[in-house]
């Protein structure tokens, strides 16, 4: 009996140690990121006019990367955008770095693709991605001194590959194209 208990315990421990621990369900990437920006910096979002969203659907970013395929981003299907304007992003409400807070706020399906931090300029850009069938969902969070933007866009894989050729401008370009403007 005792042996069975030991064996069972060992087997359970082994299974537990090799099975990824299920994380509690989290708010879906975009909504979670928007909420995080609000709580982390105690700021309020601004409603984005349809026109701004149309700008990114118009594919100016795509035009930059492939002049022959302007409508590429417009095929993305869905664009979600939230902007925060003229608010103070220099004083986070908590001592936790936003980078870590964002990682914790997103479910495990989201993988970091690009992270750019420039504390001197008060600029942070994070690009996360997750698979969405044959496409990829890209979550871009860009925070500046006075402005911020959270953007989610669905991209075809080949478009994503072209964009990551220049990851330095990937997040910035997408956020700027979305009408968020460059952080001041």
């Amino acid at each position, binding site marked *: 009996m005792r042996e069975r208990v*030991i064996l069972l315990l060992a087997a359970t*421990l082994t299974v537990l140690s090799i099975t990824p621990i299920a994380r509690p369900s989290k708010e879906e990437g975009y909504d979670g990121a928007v909420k995080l920006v609000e709580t982390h910096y105690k700021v309020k979002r601004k409603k984005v006019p349809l026109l701004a969203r149309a700008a990114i659907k118009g594919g100016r970013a795509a035009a930059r990367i492939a002049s022959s395929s302007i409508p590429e981003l417009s095929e993305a299907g869905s664009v979600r955008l939230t902007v925060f304007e003229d608010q103070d992003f220099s004083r986070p409400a908590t001592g936790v770095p936003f980078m870590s807070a964002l990682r914790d706020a997103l479910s495990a399906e989201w993988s970091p693709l*690009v992270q750019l931090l420039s*504390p001197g300029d008060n600029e942070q850009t994070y690009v996360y991605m997750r698979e969405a069938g044959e496409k990829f969902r890209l979550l871009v969070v860009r925070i500046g001194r006075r402005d911020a933007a959270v953007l989610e866009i669905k991209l075809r*894989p*080949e478009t994503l590959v072209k964009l990551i050729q220049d990851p330095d401008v990937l997040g910035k370009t997408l956020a700027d194209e979305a009408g968020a403007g460059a952080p001041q």
Partner: protein
Amino acid sequence: MKIKTFSTLKLFSFLLLTLSAQAPALAQGVPRLQLESLDHLTSRASQTVVISVDERVLKAGAPFLKSTDPDEAKVKELLKDVKGIYVKSFAFESEGEFSDADVQGVRSQLNSPDWSKIVEARSRKEDVNVEVFVKTDAAKVSGIAVIAFGSKDLTVINIVGFVDMDKLRRMEGQFGIPDLELERGAKEGKPQSDDKD
């Protein structure tokens, strides 16, 4: 006999637990480096760039790039057999913000026999140190690692998959890989001595 059975069970349990605990260690042969040890530098750096392009993106996207378009064909060729691109780059305002231990933490992962250093270039004059390591499995390149640092910057590049020096040079300035000017660096396979001037 009962005692023997009990010991066998204990031994079996011990082995199971030991094996499961060592799973990460068994994965050391993978050409992907663990760069989390550098994360603490983020709070000290004036600029941080972290790029993680994994196989999912490359596998899904690269085949769709058009071979007929010269630009896309170039990218497609570059990414052929590449399974992941990982870059961590830090720039600091002043000297002494990172230590030898930080560099050593990365270098120690490259100490295994399957990794070999093919380039070592040091120039005190230009404040640059570049080390390039290649991982081979069954005589085939399966990964490359670059450690580049000066007194105020540190960059680690890890490309998983087949990459030779020529490909690495062509990838400079793209995919988050900084321009390390490997073209005019040390000659491949011949470690250079310190440039003292």
